């Protein structure tokens, strides 16, 4: 248990360190910007007096260190400033865009895990040259191409799946509990809404999942192949376990380290993918918000999003570490 506590303490301090570093980076970069946030807020015809007032209100007339501490103090309290574009608190904005991304990313992660582990297991034994090539090809498709192809085929070609948004127009969002439509719909027994939400999730989640799933499948496959040569696999076979049991009970867990590491790495890349995918599928999540914020040069928003994504990245990596410790008891010291 002390091991667990130490792990948690380490992670939390890492979280703070990363957030502090990110905050500093974001702050420094923000100061580099030639843009004039006050003008952006007040428009082209604003008077100098009102601009000066606004600058004061935003601490922009203070020294850089004061600004930084102010920025940090606010960030600590979860105050990420005011979006220049939506005029709302960035926290409010993120709060309203985050659930969609969480739902999408979770679905994609589950899909990637299921696909990756499934394909990895299936191809682990055979020579699987074709499968291996297929995996390699899948891992090489840029998401902007894949998303578009899926859209053309399943939406505009076959009309099987919707192409845009989280819900069809006319379908009301389920009462908000978790803000994840699929979960909320299920909790309230609204099966129609649930199915509609699921259909909207499929294409973007698949687009996001393909590359990581191929990566996971590849790593899993090769570490399974190494594991299957281990002595204890021979022991398991000597115990007359079926090949299936040997693979699932003995090999899988022992081959989990590399794929988990790979999954952690893919999470980082997923973040970039979310932006592309949400753009193509009009999925109202943080990715879209980010793109929009970049386009409107909405620095507080960009900063806020970076902090939130950075934090979630740390948390996810901690989860990966936990999963690795679960998979291998020798790591739990």
């Amino acid at each position, binding site marked *: 248990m002390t091991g667990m506590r130490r792990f948690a303490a380490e992670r939390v301090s*890492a979280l703070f360190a990363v957030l502090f570093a990110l905050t500093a980076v974001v702050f420094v970069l923000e100061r580099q910007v030639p843009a004039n946030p006050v003008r952006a807020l007040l428009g082209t015809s604003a008077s100098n007096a009102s601009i000066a007032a606004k600058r004061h209100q935003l601490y922009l007339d203070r020294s850089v260190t004061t600004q930084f501490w102010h920025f940090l103090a606010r960030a600590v309290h979860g105050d990420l400033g005011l979006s220049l574009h939506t005029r709302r608190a960035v926290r409010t904005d993120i709060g309203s865009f985050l659930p969609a991304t969480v739902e999408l990313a979770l679905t994609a992660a589950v899909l990637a895990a299921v696909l990756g582990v499934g394909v990895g297991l299936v191809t682990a034994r055979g020579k699987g040259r074709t499968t291996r090539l297929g995996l390699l090809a899948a*891992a*090489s498709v*840029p998401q902007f*191409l894949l998303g578009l192809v899926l859209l053309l085929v399943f939406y505009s070609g076959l009309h099987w799946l919707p192409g845009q948004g989280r819900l069809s127009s006319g379908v009301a969002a389920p009462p908000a509990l978790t803000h994840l439509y699929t979960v909320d719909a299920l909790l309230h027994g609204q099966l129609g809404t649930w199915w509609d939400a699921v259909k909207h999730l499929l294409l973007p989640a698949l687009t996001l999942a393909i590359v990581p799933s191929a990566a996971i499948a590849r790593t899993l496959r090769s570490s399974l192949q190494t594991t299957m040569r281990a002595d204890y696999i021979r022991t398991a076979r000597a115990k007359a376990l079926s090949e299936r049991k040997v693979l699932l009970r003995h090999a899988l867990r022992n081959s989990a380290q590399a794929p988990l590491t790979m999954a952690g*790495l893919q999470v980082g*890349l997923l973040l970039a*993918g979310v932006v592309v995918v949400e753009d193509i599928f009009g999925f109202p999540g943080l990715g879209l918000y980010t793109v929009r914020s*970049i386009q409107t040069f909405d620095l507080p928003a960009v900063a806020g999003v970076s902090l939130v994504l*950075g934090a979630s990245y740390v948390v996810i990596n901690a989860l990966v570490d936990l999963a690795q410790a679960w998979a291998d008891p020798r790591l739990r010291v």
Partner: protein
Amino acid sequence: MAVADPVLLGATAVRPSRVRTRARMGMWELAGLVMLGLVSVIAIFAPLLAPHSTTQPVAAGAFASPGHGALLGTDDLGRDLLSRTLYGIRSTWLSALAVVGSGIVIGTLVGTVAATVGGVVDMLLMRITDLFLALPGPVLAIVAVVALGPSLPHTLLAVAAVWWPWYARIVRAEVRAVLARPHVDAARLAGTRRFALARRHLLPGAVPSVLVTGSLDVGNLVLTLSGLSFLGLGAPPPTPELGAMTANGLTYLFGQPWVALVPACAVFVLAFAANLAGDGVRDLLDSV
């Protein structure tokens, strides 16, 4: 009595011969390597290979379909897509190599120092590494580009900043593993000095994993970098970059699909070749 029992299912024989290792690299992986060689040639000689300027229009005019006056067609401004794609491959390829290369160099340095010096230095270096590792690369790229303006160096810097820690970790782990092996002690007893010890007896042990990771990473980077470029986080126009070219081409997807598809397919081919070759390199080095 062999210490390591050779009867491992499918394991290599007691003495791996060079012939056998080469046999392990499949046709396709070889094809991937060949393709990579070709890509590298393209990257280096793009200026010579490109039939036209990448910025000035050709005679065929805007939106010429492939084969009609330009081998792969022209884009919205009448520029030759073949030339632009060749240059795009060059820039993507060189960028990916640069990031991987910088990752390997910095990572190896940090990892080796951390592993060999140990103690406080190790802890400090690894904390820093973890910190960088925990920064989300794409986000950093976004912030950097928004703040500093879109330019390839900014993007590369942001990506490279989060890329090297992987190598530092790998190298450190490998070097530590090698350090624990008796041959290091043997070399120490032979009077080998610190620097020579690291260079001759430690680092070569980390090379295979670094090479494998690096070669598999190139594919990853091709996708990541062209994804960022697609989002407008790469070099500004009219620099031919595959992601940005695709993004631009998508505007004309229905009427003039080749404008988007040619660079997008180039990304795919590039990533596929890199992944194939990466797998090949892994097969090659893992079996040693």
